[in-house]
């Protein structure tokens, strides 16, 4: 059996195990589903009147930003799941088996896409209720969702590496909050690019979260008068997002697998 085929086969067995957990631990599912609803409602109604988005209703404009933020936060599950498996000795069990070295990570990052699919569905439904619309047709919209999921998948590999390095689940939850909050707030997810000051504006324009938000916003047709920026990244958000996705996976997947191989759980 070739290495790649074995990694996929073993990865599928691991993914099935993770998927069973989604059903058996409904608390996680509730969290996955409730928090995006909360974000949609909070931003739509708290900031809705205060932020100016030329040519489009703020609530319609906002939803792609919430999608982007939630997708990035969703990657935390990957890190937390791996940190928990380390703590409980399950990684040791896997490492003592003659299975592919990348299978645990391949399976984990794949099964976590399911969480993201579920939360996107819930957010989209909530979005429809508060006024979000798809204006560019179903295919473009599906492309938008696919891009969001791919981006989330890539970030999962970053979190996989972090999850294998931290001593406990609590650390990963706190650490990811510290990184993800600024990453998503200094982006165009909630506030249009043109509203940021001179110092922050370039950060916003080149932030990958802005890119994936802008790309899906374009594909859903919620951009109004445009991205509010002439930066190449904002004019070509799909390409720029794809570059990030490939770059992150190429760099972080091997790093995470290397960390997995030497991870010594206590």
């Amino acid at each position, binding site marked *: *059996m070739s290495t790649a085929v*074995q990694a996929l*086969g*073993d990865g599928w*067995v*691991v993914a*099935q*195990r993770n998927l*069973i*957990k989604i059903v*058996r*631990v409904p608390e996680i599912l509730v969290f996955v589903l409730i928090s995006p609803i909360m974000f949609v409602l909070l931003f739509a109604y708290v900031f809705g009147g205060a932020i100016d988005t030329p040519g489009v209703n703020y609530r319609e404009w906002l939803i792609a930003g919430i999608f982007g933020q939630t997708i990035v936060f969703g990657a935390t599950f990957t890190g937390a799941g791996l940190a928990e498996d380390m703590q*409980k*000795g*399950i990684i*040791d*069990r*896997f*490492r*003592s*088996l*003659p*299975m592919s070295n990348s*299978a645990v990570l391949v399976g984990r990052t794949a099964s976590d896409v399911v969480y993201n699919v579920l939360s996107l569905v819930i957010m989209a439904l909530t979005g429809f209720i508060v006024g979000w619309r798809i204006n560019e047709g179903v295919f473009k919209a599906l492309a938008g969702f696919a891009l969001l999921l791919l981006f989330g998948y890539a970030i999962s590999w970053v979190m996989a590496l972090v999850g294998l390095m931290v001593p406990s689940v609590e650390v990963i939850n706190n650490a990811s909050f510290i990184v993800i909050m600024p990453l998503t707030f200094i982006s165009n997810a909630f506030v249009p690019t043109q509203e940021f000051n001179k110092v922050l504006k370039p950060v916003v324009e080149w932030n990958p979260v802005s890119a994936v938000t802008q790309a899906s916003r374009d594909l859903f047709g919620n951009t109004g008068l445009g991205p509010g920026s002439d930066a190449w990244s904002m004019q070509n958000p799909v390409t720029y997002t794809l570059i990030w996705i490939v770059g992150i996976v190429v760099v972080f997947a091997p790093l995470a697998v290397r960390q997995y191989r030497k991870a*010594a759980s206590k």
Partner: protein
Amino acid sequence: MSGNEAMIRATGLVKRYKDVEALAGLDLTVPEGKVLALLGPNGAGKTTAVRCLTTLLKPDAGSVSVAGVDVVNDPAAAKAKIGLSGQYAAVDEHLTAYENLVMIGRLYHLGRQPARDRASELLERFDLTEFANRPTKTYSGGQRRRLDLACALVAAPPVIVLDEPTTGLDVRSRQLMWDVIRELVRDGATLLLTTQYLEEADVLADDIVVIDHGRQIAHGTADELKSQTGGQRIEVVLASAADSDAAARILNEVAVGEVQVSDGGRELQAAAGQEAATDLLRVLQGFERDAVKVLDVGLRRPTLDDVFLSLTGHAAEAAATTTDATEASQ
């Protein structure tokens, strides 16, 4: 590897963590079909040794072979030969016992149906069929440990490594576990187990290696080790510490080795000779003769602490160890 004798052979294992030398040149040999117990207190290097033997950790120096496979150079082949059951009962708590076993069978590439058949077979053998379809988080410690051991046996490996298989279990679960392990040995498995309990090593192992600070401090059968520590121990609790010297003198006449005094002189103990009961009787006669009043007196089997004390001159560092071991032997 020469002939078929050594299924596990480790030579000169060294592993350092920053300033701590967890293994300082450990040698281990387990012949086919035999059981070796690695006995030592917490922090002696038992788990590090297990991790080096099972490909989870690369030793800084030394070599390990399992069933003729070089563990360091060919970990993938070695993994197929070893079943590992760790200290932390690594079963997925959200999966049922059946699901856990099937998952592991599939990761051993047994194929879907053979993995299912093997799972059912192991559940039956380990007396877990009744709970097979409950998530394992509802299991007792003993059930989880049995399942963990079952997981190690999914691919019927020729070598089984058990890291503290009964630590934290109650007496009944421990007995059950011992029965299961004895059965494995009867079926011809080669086994290495680590333990903090001399009793456990005594019951299960052909050969015992006592380790401390990552090196071997004694090696032999349980009987050989016990003869070094003087077998059973006489313990005396005095009514008054004033009699301490007299009691120590009497014990000294009878006992093998040094008399230990504790609790401000009220508690004394010493190793008895081969005829422990006769020795005890002589001690009591001496007490009566010299009018030494005792609250309690008795014979007790040696614990890891006693072995340590006699081998190293210092007590095993984990105080809890002794209590557990004493409870287990009752």
